[in-house]
């Protein structure tokens, strides 16, 4: 079984979906000859031709709007937006057009597209290349939202997303692109959207996280004193959200810490905290803690590490929660 990083596993998923289904079409800035600025689409244009892996003019609104049209016409469009900061110009097409499509057409005309977007900070990137806007899209009815943190899950989730009859926002934590490898089966498999994964089992508290923060949380959990064991849940599907896995774990441990890079207020951590108190109120031993970015603009990279939750900050919250 090959050891792949996130870049290679996503590339493999795209290759397999292009092979499997002729209606799959990739489009975006620099995705063709250049293979994408992060090389996610490397080699695909050569293999499948310019008609199916298309370099577009430099316009996110154009990319997303054209993807909506392709989807209306029966294609499985897989647009790439180069960085999450540039979802702005695509927002109208994604939120006001793609997301509402099935509802407003009463199921007649649909919008099966999967928009791939690198997300998050920690790579010393320029402005608008390090944000975490996932909650905006989770808050948008009609969109499914995925953020896979690990290569094996990413491959299965992306296959599901492309085959999904509804629009999916597929966030790729760019800090993880090349920093982690694992065995990835090269056969055709899918992972259901809406399914969290328990990465580590534990009895004393539950950590709920996603994206690049998964690795910071694992680090923090490993550094806990021996008498505290933490359960680590990689949410990976942000919408639909796997309430059952969260509730099952927190009901048992009685304590929960939610970790994300995005700002605190109205971040997905707020929703998860609310769900926990709705479902686990009588089992809770401590208030649910959130370790998050702050309610400020993502700083330029000189201060990004003062903004991003790191293992030390997470670890402190874990100890506080465990001791409560």
């Amino acid at each position: 079984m090959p050891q792949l990083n996130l870049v290679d596993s996503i590339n493999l998923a795209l290759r397999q979906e292009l092979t499997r289904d002729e209606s799959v079409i990739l489009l975006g800035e620099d995705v063709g000859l250049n293979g994408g600025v992060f090389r996610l689409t490397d080699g695909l244009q050569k293999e499948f031709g310019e008609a199916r892996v298309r370099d577009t003019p430099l316009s996110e609104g154009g990319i997303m709007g054209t993807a909506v049209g392709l989807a209306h016409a029966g294609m499985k469009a897989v647009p790439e937006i180069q960085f999450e900061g540039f979802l702005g110009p695509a927002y109208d097409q994604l939120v006001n057009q793609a997301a509402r499509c099935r509802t407003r057409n009463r199921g007649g005309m649909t919008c099966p597209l999967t928009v791939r977007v690198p997300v998050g900070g920690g790579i010393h990137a320029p402005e608008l290349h390090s944000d975490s806007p996932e909650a905006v899209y989770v808050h948008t009815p009609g969109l499914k939202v995925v953020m896979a943190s690990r290569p094996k899950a990413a491959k299965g989730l992306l296959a599901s997303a492309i085959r999904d009859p509804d629009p999916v926002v597929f966030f790729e934590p760019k800090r993880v692109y090349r920093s982690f490898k694992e065995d990835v089966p090269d056969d055709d498999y899918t992972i259901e959207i809406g399914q969290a994964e328990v990465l580590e089992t534990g009895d004393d508290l539950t950590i709920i996280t996603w994206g690049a923060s998964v690795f910071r949380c694992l680090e923090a959990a490993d550094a806990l004193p021996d008498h505290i064991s933490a359960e680590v849940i990689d949410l990976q599907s942000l919408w639909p959200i796997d309430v059952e896995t969260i509730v099952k774990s927190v009901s048992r441990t009685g304590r929960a810490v939610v970790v994300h890079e995005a700002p605190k207020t109205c971040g997905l951590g707020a929703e998860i905290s609310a769900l926990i108190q709705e479902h686990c109120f009588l089992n809770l031993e401590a208030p649910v803690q959130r370790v998050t970015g702050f309610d400020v603009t993502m700083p330029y990279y000189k201060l990004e590490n003062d903004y991003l939750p790191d293992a030390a900050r997470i670890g402190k919250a874990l100890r506080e929660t465990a001791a409560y």
Partner: protein
Amino acid sequence: MPTHDVFNGSVSRVEILSADGSIDEQLADEVRDVLDDEAVVAAYREMLVARELDDAAYRLQRSGRMGTFPQNKGQEAGPLAAAMTLIAGHDHVVPSYRENIALFHLGLPMHQILLHWMGDERGNDIDPKLGISPICISIGAHLPHAAGIGWKLKIDNDKHGTDRVCMAFFGDGATSEGAFHDGLNFAATGDAPVVFVCQNNGWAISVPTEKQTRSQTFAQKALAYGMPGFQADGNDLFASFKVCRDAVRHARAGNGPALVELTTYRIADHTTVDDASRYRSKEEHERGVASDPLIRTRRYLEARGQWNDDLEKQEKERATRIVKEVIATAMEIEKPGKSDIFDYAFATTPRELERQRETRRTGSLGQSPRQSTLSRVEADEAVTV
């Protein structure tokens, strides 16, 4: 009713100083009122400094002292000529990121550009008197800003009899963004004194012009918005100056906006994380390098007896000295404080943000009552990595 033409338009290209150093004397004389030998020598010296800074920034990035950096190499003449048609502090500039030399010419301290790319927001803390907006990273997003600034300038010009203009810089790729349409359309319908300067270097990262647009030129896009469009060889200081001055005069005279296309070549990669050899042929790159505006300007000056090898050596040494000082200034500046990320979020920091600032300091989220029993030392230890 017979059919008849309802629109006819055309775009002319201006070339004065060609790559081999030959010059159209008649056209050159039209701009020698400003571009006399002394001014061209000064411009060439500015180009040498900007080129040295660009190379130095590349080395800083490669040695891990700077983040991603978009090199300006090869695109010095057009933006410098454009800036020479403006009045520093009187006019306003809305830049993208490949016309640093224009900003330097108008008075921006060079170390601020380095700070920006070193991930330090103080690079954007620009003296308001300069009339320079910070670098816009989001492609094309600043073009409607130029229109808005232009609206305000028009109000002021009409009121006070002034003739201020706004100049926006952007690349060929930006013309595909919806914001390009908005910027031009709003400037045109508002009769705003805006000069849109498109540096067409042939590439939007890996996408060549012919995949960006089916228009033969970017300049002709102006005509659809009801403004004049000019095109010039952007590696030719004289031609660039001529069309930019024509466009600026048009705007200063109250005739509304204009678009200038300066054709040039991006000698380096798109940024330091790009590898242009994946999509550009060696032959094309060699042609691009041969059209280097520095080589061309130097040849011109040599032919006029204004430049020689000794001066070249001396001026390159001067450029190296200046850039060393600029780098030292940028490197020596103390890292901004951790609290900095909260200081500029709002004019008045809301209470909740003050609480978050405190949790950042103590490393606690402040939800647990235990936080109050933790000593500062304990809290600080807990967050020290």
